[in-house]
C-alpha cells in the first residue's frame, strides 16, 4: 500500500492499486471529496461540487461492465464541455441554468472507460482570458500562491490537478488555455493537433482553433487520457480520419538521435523573465544529455502571431456567440419597456455577457464588418498562412521544437485584468500552435529562484505527431524531478 493518500496519486498508480484491491474507488472518491471540502472554498477551482451526485455516479460505475481503463478514477472537466444532466455554463451568466441534454464525445469516452466526471472546473468566461479572473462565478487561485492566478482559461482544471482535487482533467485550448495554466500550476498539459479530438459538445469559442486536451500530474497519464479521447467522431466533421497510435506504448522508445529546434524568436532579449530563460537552458542541456541534438531555428513570423490571433479568434468568437439571444436556452432578460424582441436580445446580451466577452464581440464584429473585412480579417488569414509555413519549414530541420510556455511564472491576481492588451501578450508563446494547428505540450521544468512558483517548458511537433511529443516529454520527465514537486498549500482553519 502506498504511503500517500489516494487523492495524491496518478491514474497509472491508482489503476494498479485498484486492480490489486489495495485502493477501492469509494475510498479514493471520499478522500478527494474531503480535500475538495477543505481546499475548494479557498481555491475556487470548482464553481460548485455536489458530493451526492458524485457518489451516485460512483455507484453506477461500480456496476459498469467491463471495467474500463479509468475505472473509478475521478476526472474533472472544464465548464465548457457538455455533461448530460449537469449544469454547464462556460462560467458565464448567459448560460446560467443550462443543463445539456447530451454528453460531449470526449466525456462519453471517459465514462465508457469508467471515469467519474467531476463537472464545473472554473474558467475564464467562454475561455476568454489567461487568468481565470473573468469567470462570472469567482476567481480561481493558484495553489502555489493563492495571491496569484492559476493561468487560464483552463485555470480551474489546472488548479484542481495541482492541488490533488482531481486525478486529471480535460481542458480546452484556443490560444494556450491548457498549456499556460499547466505551466503556472506545475502540471502537464497537452493541446492535441487540430482535428485529433472531437469537439462535439465543446461550447465553441473559435472553431478553427479550439481543441480539447488533458491536464495531468505526469506525462504517462497524459498519454493515457489522450489515447482515450483521440480519434474521429462522426458528430464532428472536422475530426480527422487519422489512426490513433498507442501513445502509452511509445513512451519508452527513447529519444537518442532526435533533433530539437530552439527558435530564436522565443528567447527575446526583453520581455522574458530571466528565471524562465535559465530554466529553459537547463532543460535543453538535459535533452542533450539524453542524446538529442540541438538545432538553432528561426520562425520569423512569430512577432505577428498575437495580432493575427486576436483577429481570427475574435472574429470566430463573435460569430459563435451570436447564438446567445435568450430564445432557446440560457439566460433571458425581461423585455419590459417596449417589450419588443429586439429589446429582449439587446438586454439579454448586455446583462448576460461580462466585460471581456463584450470586448471580443465588438472586436470580432468590427474586423468582420463591411469596409474592414479585407484590412483586418482577410489580412489575418493570410498572415496565418505565413505562420503555418514557418512551422512546415521547421520540420525539415528538427523533430520537436523547445520553447518556454509563458514569458513568466504566474502573475498576481489583478495585475493584468484592466489592461487587456497586456493580458493578450502573455499568450505570446502558445498561440502560434493553434494558428498552425500543431500539437504542443507544457511540462514542469523548474521553479523560480525563491522556489515558490513553477516554470513550464513547451514542446511542439508536426501535425499528428503527439506520439513523438510525448516520448520526448516522458524522457525529460524520467531524467528530472520537477513533476514531483507539489505546492505546500496552507489554509487557515
Amino acid at each position, binding site marked *: 500500500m502506498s504511503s500517500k493518500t489516494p487523492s495524491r496519486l496518478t491514474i497509472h498508480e491508482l489503476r494498479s492499486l485498484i486492480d490489486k484491491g489495495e485502493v477501492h474507488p469509494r475510498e479514493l472518491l471520499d478522500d478527494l471529496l474531503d480535500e475538495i471540502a477543505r481546499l475548494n472554498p479557498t481555491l475556487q477551482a470548482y464553481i460548485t461540487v455536489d458530493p451526492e451526485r458524485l457518489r451516485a455516479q460512483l455507484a453506477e460505475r461500480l456496476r459498469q461492465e467491463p471495467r474500463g481503463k479509468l475505472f473509478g478514477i475521478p476526472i474533472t472537466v472544464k465548464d465548457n464541455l457538455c455533461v448530460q444532466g449537469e449544469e454547464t455554463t462556460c462560467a458565464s451568466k448567459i448560460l446560467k441554468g*443550462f*443543463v445539456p*441534454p*447530451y454528453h460531449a464525445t470526449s466525456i462519453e469516452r471517459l465514462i465508457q472507460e469508467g471515469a467519474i466526471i467531476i463537472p464545473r472546473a472554473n474558467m475564464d468566461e467562454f475561455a476568454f482570458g489567461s487568468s481565470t479572473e473573468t469567470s462570472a462565478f469567482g476567481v480561481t487561485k493558484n495553489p502555489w500562491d493563492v495571491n496569484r492566478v492559476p493561468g487560464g482559461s483552463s485555470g480551474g482544471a489546472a488548479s484542481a490537478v495541482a492541488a490533488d482535487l482531481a486525478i486529471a482533467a480535460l481542458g480546452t485550448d484556443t490560444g494556450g488555455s491548457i498549456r499556460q495554466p499547466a505551466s503556472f500550476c506545475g502540471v502537464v498539459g497537452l493541446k492535441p493537433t*487540430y*482535428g485529433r479530438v472531437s469537439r462535439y459538445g465543446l461550447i465553441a469559442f473559435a472553431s*478553427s482553433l479550439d481543441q480539447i486536451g488533458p491536464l495531468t500530474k505526469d506525462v504517462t497519464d497524459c498519454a493515457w487520457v489522450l489515447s482515450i479521447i483521440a480519434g474521429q467522431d462522426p458528430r464532428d466533421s*472536422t475530426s480527422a480520419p487519422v489512426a490513433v497510435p498507442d501513445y502509452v506504448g511509445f513512451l519508452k522508445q527513447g529519444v537518442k538521435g532526435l533533433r530539437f529546434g530552439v527558435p530564436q524568436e522565443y528567447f527575446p532579449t526583453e520581455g522574458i523573465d530571466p528565471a524562465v530563460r535559465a530554466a529553459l537552458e537547463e532543460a535543453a542541456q538535459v535533452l542533450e544529455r539524453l542524446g538529442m541534438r540541438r538545432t538553432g531555428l528561426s520562425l520569423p513570423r512569430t*512577432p*505577428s502571431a*498575437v*495580432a*493575427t490571433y*486576436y*483577429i481570427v479568434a475574435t472574429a470566430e468568437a*463573435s460569430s459563435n456567440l451570436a447564438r446567445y*439571444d*435568450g*430564445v*432557446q*436556452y*440560457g*439566460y*433571458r432578460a425581461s423585455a419590459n419597456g417596449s*417589450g*419588443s*424582441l*429586439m*429589446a*429582449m436580445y*439587446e438586454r439579454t*446580451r*448586455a446583462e448576460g*455577457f461580462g*466585460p471581456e466577452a*463584450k*470586448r471580443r*464581440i*465588438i*472586436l470580432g*464584429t*468590427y474586423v468582420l*464588418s463591411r469596409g474592414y473585412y479585407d*484590412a*483586418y480579417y*482577410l*489580412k*489575418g*488569414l*493570410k*498572415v*496565418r*498562412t*505565413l505562420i*503555418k509555413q514557418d512551422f512546415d519549414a521547421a520540420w525539415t530541420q528538427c523533430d520537436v521544437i523547445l520553447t518556454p510556455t509563458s514569458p513568466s511564472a504566474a502573475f498576481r491576481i489583478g495585475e493584468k485584468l484592466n489592461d*487587456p*492588451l497586456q493580458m*493578450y501578450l502573455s499568450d505570446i508563446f502558445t498561440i502560434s500552435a493553434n494558428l*498552425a*494547428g500543431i500539437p504542443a505540450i507544457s511540462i514542469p521544468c523548474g521553479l523560480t529562484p525563491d522556489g515558490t512558483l513553477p516554470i513550464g517548458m513547451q514542446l511542439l511537433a508536426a501535425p499528428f505527431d503527439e506520439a513523438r511529443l510525448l516520448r520526448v516529454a516522458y524522457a525529460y520527465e524520467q531524467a528530472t524531478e520537477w513533476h514531483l514537486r507539489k505546492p505546500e498549500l496552507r489554509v487557515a482553519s
Partner: protein
Amino acid sequence: MSVVSQRDVQQVARLARLQLEEAELATLSSQVDDILTYVQQLQAVSTDHVEPTSHVITLANVVRPDQRQPCTNPEEILNIAPARHGQLVKVPKVLET
C-alpha cells in the same frame, strides 16, 4: 490618432445586438482602439500572392450515409428554453397586430 471612434463602437454594438451603458461605451472604445492599433502592425507584413488560411485541415465534403438515428427527446430540448408554450418556444411579440 485613434483607429475607432465611440460612434463606430456604438454602431458595431448595435450590429452585435449588444446594449452598452455610456460608461461602458467609453471604456470599451478606448480598449478596442488600443487593440486595433496594436493589430495594425500586420499591415507591414507582405502578403502578396499568399492564400488565406481559414482552416488548417483540408477536409472537404465530409458525408455519412443518410440513415435514421435516434435523436434527443423534444421535451428535453423544450424544457431548457427560458419560456415555452405547449410544444413551442415562447418569445416576445414579433409582429404588431
